[in-house]
């Protein structure tokens, strides 16, 4: 679903690339954690998938398309296939919960009937069925993040990118968010989540891609990790799997 082919991304300092020769693939329906310290390249990874940035060398394929070769007018179509959730929620403060979710459908021209049918369903998925009429500031942080998730998935994207979605939340609330992301993943959506919360990573037992100074230092499935400083370290005795599947993504 997402394939990085020897991707290097340099911002300003050529000797310190944000990403350096990244070569990996996330399959359809996968749930992958992207871990690593601040500045390790997690956000750059996400920005490259969204084509907010273009690789300095190598190529990024999303849903079978080389995003660098995509003409700029087609970029919105790529992004309709990708949902994004951020640490700071990014809700519109002057719109209700319902309107925030509906906004994502309105701006891509969905009909009012379709919006009225879909938004309540999605709000129910994230457990906010009763709170559609509330304003964002009336909600707790966890509830706000659930609205953001509802907005990210309301257009049924194939990929959900989450950049530290639990970073601003207490552990209990974070677990609630993870349950929702897990449920979305069970429904077939590929989820890539950047985090440095080892408790969450350990409990979920999913694929972990660890970045350090722009390089993949670990890519393992279902392992147990613990934090050493601000790094997550794989505990001994876990079985590592090959990071790449030969299976082709086609769409």
């Amino acid at each position, binding site marked *: 679903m997402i394939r990085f082919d020897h991707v290097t991304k340099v911002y300003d300092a050529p000797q310190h690339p944000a990403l350096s020769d990244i070569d990996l693939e996330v399959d359809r329906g996968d749930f992958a954690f992207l871990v690593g310290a601040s500045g390790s390249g997690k956000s750059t990874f996400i920005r490259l998938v*969204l084509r907010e940035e273009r690789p300095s060398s190598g190529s990024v394929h999303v849903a079978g398309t080389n995003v660098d070769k995509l003409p*700029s*007018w087609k970029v*919105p*179509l*790529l*992004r*309709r*296939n*990708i*949902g*994004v959730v951020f640490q700071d929620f*990014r809700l*519109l403060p002057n719109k209700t919960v319902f309107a925030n979710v509906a*906004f*994502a459908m*309105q*701006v*891509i*021209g969905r*009909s*009012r009937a379709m919006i009225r049918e879909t938004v309540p369903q999605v709000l129910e998925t994230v457990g906010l069925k009763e709170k559609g009429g509330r304003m964002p500031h009336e909600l707790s942080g966890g509830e706000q993040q659930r609205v953001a998730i509802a*907005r*990210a998935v309301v*257009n049924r994207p194939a990929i959900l990118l989450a950049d530290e979605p639990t970073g601003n939340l207490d552990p209990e609330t974070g677990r609630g968010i993870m349950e929702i992301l897990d449920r979305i993943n069970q429904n077939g959506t590929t989820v890539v989540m950047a985090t440095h919360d080892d408790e969450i990573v350990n409990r979920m037992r999913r694929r972990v891609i660890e970045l350090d100074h722009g390089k993949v230092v670990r890519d393992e499935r279902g392992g147990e990790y613990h934090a050493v400083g601000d790094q997550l370290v794989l505990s001994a005795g876990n079985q590592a799997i090959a990071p790449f599947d030969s299976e082709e993504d086609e769409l």
Partner: protein
Amino acid sequence: MRLSFVLSEIFSGLRRNLSMVVSVILVTFVSLSFVGAAGLLQAQVTQMKGYWFDKVQVAVYLCNSTSVSANCPVGADGAATPVSESQRTAVEDALKSDEMKSYVAMYEYESPEEAYKHFQEQFGNSSMADLVKPDQLPASFRIKLVDPEKYQVINERFSTMPGVDQVADQRQYLDKVFQLINVASIVAVIIAAVMIVCAVLLVATTIRLSAFTRRRETGIMRLVGASKSVIQLPFVLEGVIAAAIGAILASGVLWAVLQFVVTDRLAAENPQVAFIDPTEMFWVAPLLILIGVLLAGLSSLLTLRRYLKV
């Protein structure tokens, strides 16, 4: 993209930026008023020139029954004697003569009927048009001179000929008036140009501000895959609507000036001068709206290209 959604986005944008939008409206209003005024002044010049002005310099008016000059003998009934056929031919022969050849480039005869037609075209919107009958208007020879300065030669040669009422140099008075109007037009155009620059810059600043205050919305629109046109349209329309309101205000003020100052005062007090009337706004108003919309649209598109990442 649903129309109602675009409209609600535009109106929330207009509300949020109210003070800037009002200043855009006012600046476009003032600048387009000057543009329109310059256009109307030129229309007034055209109106005053009438049919002959650009074609000839000198008119030799022939006597008719209403002539009062001493050249036209008064008959028994108290009215002047109209020019006779032989007198008219004599004048025409003189124009064609070798003596005049070096002065007269071209001449045309205007019969009273033609004079009436041209008069109606020039004064059609004034009360004069109804009062004047064809037989009140003299026949004339309209003469184009080789050298426009040699008016006196024509005057000396023809003014004493029998049947000639008077010889008139049309440019004599009008040229001064036109000079004045042209200076006024140039001043209006200069002021308009400066104000238009202000308007363009102000639209750009407004759009920039608007793009900044709505960066959350546009950021989310980008992320969920809204197309470029959907993201930019509300901003462009915001500027365009403000400029169009300014243009409509300018048209309204110019119309009011034409109606209440020109038609009701100037034209009523000076019936001998042909004035433009408020129907001129039928071409001026659409032009002003078009100019306003184009300027605002272009400047906001250029601004968005720099300040709104899509």
